[in-house]
């Protein structure tokens, strides 16, 4: 799950990057509004966290421009401006959520999860449940509905499984998976993905991820239940 963080305060960006990474997001970070304008459209992000008080270009202008250009990524505004009129302005400019600073990190993560879920037509809840497999986003664990024993996942496994489960009926090309799992500076190695997928299959059953030869991967669900 790729996340674009646009925040000009370095200490906060550091903390947030660590927080997001810990929760299975691949984070790219911009400090300047002009960089962000280009970045958001050139990379396949799944969610954007936007600070409004930016050097270069104000966050609201960015937001309006992206929405006018048809950019459809969920955007969460993170800002020191906490009044309701500012909140209404932000949401009407096209943001999907608005979180005033200071915030509790847990709340930010919950809001992000809810945003992403809503975008994929799922109801916000602590777990994603698709085709007999349940993924706990907060605990980063998964289990089969037929088995009920939670299995802990590594961060990468969790990120892959979440991405596939949020697109249950799609065949995801390996490149696309890589695009969404690693930030732009990360060394992306296709073989590593295969290793993670193998681990997932060991943990949750062979059928949980189906390889469509030459096309990519597809979420298979709980094969034993089917």
């Amino acid at each position: 799950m790729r996340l674009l963080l646009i925040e000009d305060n370095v200490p906060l960006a550091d903390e947030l990057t660590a927080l997001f990474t810990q929760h299975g997001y691949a984070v790219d970070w911009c400090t300047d509004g002009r960089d962000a304008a280009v970045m958001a459209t050139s990379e396949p992000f799944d969610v954007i966290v936007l600070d409004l008080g930016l050097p270069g270009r104000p966050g609201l202008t960015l937001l309006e421009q992206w929405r006018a250009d048809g950019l459809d990524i969920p955007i969460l505004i993170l800002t020191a401006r906490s009044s309701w009129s500012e909140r209404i302005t932000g949401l009407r400019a096209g943001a999907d959520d608005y979180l005033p600073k200071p915030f509790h990190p847990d709340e930010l993560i919950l809001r992000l999860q809810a945003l992403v879920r809503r975008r994929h037509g799922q109801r916000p809840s602590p777990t994603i449940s698709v085709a007999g497999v349940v993924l706990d986003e907060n605990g980063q664990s998964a289990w089969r509905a037929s088995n009920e024993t939670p299995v802990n996942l590594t961060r990468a496994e969790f990120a892959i499984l979440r991405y596939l489960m949020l697109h249950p009926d799609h065949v995801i090309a390996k490149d696309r998976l890589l695009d969404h799992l690693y930030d732009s500076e990360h060394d992306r190695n296709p073989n590593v993905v295969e290793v993670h997928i193998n681990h997932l299959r060991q943990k949750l059953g062979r059928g949980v991820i189906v390889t469509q030869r030459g096309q990519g991967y597809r979420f298979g669900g709980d094969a034993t239940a089917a």
Partner: protein
Amino acid sequence: MSLTRRLDLGLLASVLVVMLLLAHGSVVLFDQVMRDYLTERLREDAESLATLPVNSNNEVQIDPLRLRASFNQVYSGQYFVIDIDDDIHLRSRSLWDYRLKPASGDTAQIRRGPEGQSLLVWTGRYHRGDHHFTITTALDYSSVTRRLDWLRLCIWALGGVMAILLVFIQRRVIRLGLKPLGRLQRELAQLHEGRRMALETRVPDEIAPFVAELNHQLGRIEQVLNRSRDGIANLSHALKTPLSVMEAQLARRELEQFPDLRNSLHARLDDIHRLVERELQRARLDTGEVSPAARFRPATDLAPLIETLREIYPDITFVDDSAELPSLPWDRDEMLEVLGNLLDNAGKWAASLARLTLAREDEWLVMTVEDDGPGIPAEKRSHVMGRGTRLDEQVSGHGLGLGIVEQIVQHYGGRLRLEDSALGGLMVTVELPISGD
């Protein structure tokens, strides 16, 4: 005492003094001129009397027919006495039995005469032949005095009328001249109500420096206020980012071993946050003036708010039961803050329904927000009010909502009440006085 009154009294006094002097002076001058003129006549009369023929017995023949008629008429007002060589005394018949003493010196004198007349008496001395003539002529001056008195009266009356006229004219002039002051007064009133930031009336040069200085000071005050307000706002906003950093740092896994420390730091951060929000809100409220463009218009401002809340709480039905209301005399942002926080609380606690009602009752705007949630037991309500406690922390947010609402409601002189709702949950009622509208 007002300036106009002072000027009125001053003018009235000075006009009266001038009139007094004028009346007196002119009467004195007139009197003088009149006496000179009449003295001349007396002298002529005396000279003509001096030419009366004197017979061989040293007797002056007075032929009554040769004299002016008025000399022969008793107490007619024209008299003469002729003394020749101190032994012959001749008197005009008009004197009858009145004894007229000669005047001393060369000037005419006023004397009391017969029948209450006041006489102008003049005495001249002549030599003719061996004879000394002392001729005293007199005429009744009281008619002149009467006329002079009348003249004095006239001038007094005229002066009085003029004084009144002058006062009226001056009033008019002053009123015209002070018109800018009236406008100034109105502008000052507007200034006081905060509907104006500077005085713009063109004023006379005399008071222009005052107005300029006042404007200068007002500008300075506004600048200082703005600076401190902006300063507080900037500081508050700037503090929020480090607060967020600390919140994020507190959430680090390393700290999970020290739950007490974490909770304590957490509470302190919340305290700071609450202070920051309160000062920020106070700085906002201090803006004072509500420009017409920033006024709260329920007709257009409520819909986006409700829309936003529906997005935030998709499971809750938000109902807006508000009456049609015109634009109201409060700042739009503050009203949105009040309603936003109340509706947000309602959204957090409601089971499925939250209702907003705005209505005008006499001079009050009554806003109620209610929900069908669990509500707050009566005994805990006072606890929730008064210090912005965070009863809603379990749900989310920092429990600032109601505190800010209270702050704003207090600022506008309103009332805040918590009651049971007919929907089953809590009903928050905010009443704001509509004044000056």
